[in-house]
């Protein structure tokens, strides 16, 4: 495109300074893409009016799917016809976000052919985000994606695109194969992912250890967080090396352990593993000396949500320890039992965590067939109303 881009004095401010600028990037695309050029116009207008000119649309998608495309329109279509329809695709990312450069080029080529060429790698859902498609382009772009081995992700009241940390691919702390588990769950629940049948969204996130690099505890209805049952592995010679190199073990390790279960006598480190709550602190500070134990698996937590308006809810322990071996039958059984109960009685837009608060943890456990265990108590005295069948019977 040889004619000059439209004038955008307010957006230009965002190109100043040494940091990357989305305006700079949109301008680059705008030289060859009219939708990107229209985006500049509408954005500049939004900065003038101090209001978004995008609006939601209800009725777009690809044949057979209830998720993966989010309808987006301009509320100034006469003024900015290039972006009158500007839908978003969520494209299911590979586990752990691993690509070859060839695959990245393929994705970008597809998107330049069909849409604005603007992407968000990646959205906070984990998906590859393609920004700005016309309604007509939806099906042909989808066909190109599937021909290259990609599929849409979730949106609406369905299983959302599962995501995981890089896990054993790059991280020695991974207590299970997050990449495989994420991939397995994604493939096992294609129907639940593409055909929304729940009261609201349901997110799986897989973290290999309690560092929880995908923030699953805050962002997923089902957090699968790696953990271990036996003792932290200690290399005493390496601990001494850390001490010799200036780590104040008493101050930086022992006193910062949340349960104060570590002792250091200047020569050897003694951990009372029964009291360890697997916070990862000591391991994070001395990665060469300490590592998670050998009996590894995951803790399953349920019920987080990060709402825009109400208070955030963190997920809480449901299954303290689960072995994470393919085909992950126990995990699937639990997920399906939850969907069955919440699916039938949950209100529209009620996340499973809110549902549990409404019906009560005791009733919920009863319905999905789990026994209450002490690990489910999130804080002392926060869940006082778990009743045990035997006690009830005695009262009657």
């Amino acid at each position, binding site marked *: 495109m040889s004619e000059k881009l439209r004038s955008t004095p307010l957006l230009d401010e965002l190109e100043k300074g040494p940091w990357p600028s989305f305006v700079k990037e949109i301008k680059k695309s705008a030289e060859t893409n009219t939708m990107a050029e229209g985006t500049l116009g509408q954005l500049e207008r939004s900065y003038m009016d101090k209001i978004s000119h995008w609006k939601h649309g*209800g*009725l777009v*998608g690809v044949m057979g799917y209830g998720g993966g495309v989010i309808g987006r329109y301009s509320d100034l279509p006469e003024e900015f016809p290039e972006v009158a329809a500007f839908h978003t695709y969520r494209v299911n990312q590979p586990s752990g976000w691993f690509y070859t450069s060839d695959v990245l080029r393929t994705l970008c080529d597809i998107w330049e052919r069909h849409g604005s060429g603007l992407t968000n790698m990646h959205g906070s859902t984990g998906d590859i985000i393609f920004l700005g498609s016309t309604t007509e382009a939806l099906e042909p772009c989808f066909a190109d994606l599937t021909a290259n081995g990609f599929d849409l992700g979730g949106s609406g009241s369905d299983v959302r695109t599962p995501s995981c940390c890089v896990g054993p691919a790059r991280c020695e702390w991974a207590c299970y194969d997050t990449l495989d588990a994420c991939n397995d769950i994604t493939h096992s629940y294609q129907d639940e992912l593409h055909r929304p049948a*729940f009261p609201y969204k349901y997110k799986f996130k897989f973290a290999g250890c309690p560092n929880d690099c995908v923030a699953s505890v805050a962002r997923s209805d089902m957090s699968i967080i790696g953990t271990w049952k036996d003792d932290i592995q200690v290399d005493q010679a390496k601990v001494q090396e850390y001490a010799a190199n200036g780590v104040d073990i008493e101050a930086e390790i022992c006193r910062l352990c949340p349960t104060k279960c570590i002792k250091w006598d200047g020569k050897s480190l003694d951990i009372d593993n029964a009291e360890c709550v697997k916070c990862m602190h000591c391991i994070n500070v001395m990665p060469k000396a300490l590592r998670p134990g050998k009996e590894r698996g995951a803790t399953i937590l349920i019920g987080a949500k990060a709402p825009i308006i109400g208070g955030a809810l963190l997920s809480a322990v449901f299954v303290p320890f689960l072995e994470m071996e393919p085909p992950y039958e126990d995990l699937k059984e639990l997920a399906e039992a939850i969907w*069955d109960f919440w699916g039938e009685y949950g209100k529209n*837009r009620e996340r499973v965590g809110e549902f549990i608060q409404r019906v009560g943890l005791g009733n919920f456990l009863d319905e999905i067939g789990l026994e209450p265990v002490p690990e489910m108590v999130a804080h002392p005295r926060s869940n006082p109303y778990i009743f045990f069948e035997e006690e009830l019977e005695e009262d009657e």
Partner: protein
Amino acid sequence: MSQPTVDEVAEAMYDLVKVTHGKKNLKAMDLTKAMIEKFGEDAVDKKFCKLAIRQLIDSGRCIYSYFGGSFITLPPEEGSGG
């Protein structure tokens, strides 16, 4: 009532979406519950209804729509620009 086929259940779902169109939006579970009530829980269950919904959507008679949650609705009318 005798055992209905997936097609028959899908057809009954379609009829329900048609009569409630413009009055009430239905979710997949609403359709499922209505069918279990209509045909009886011995004849159809959640799994069977899932197949019927798949058939209803894949035939193009209904689509998924999003109004702050996912619903099963009639497709937009031709020319309405939806």
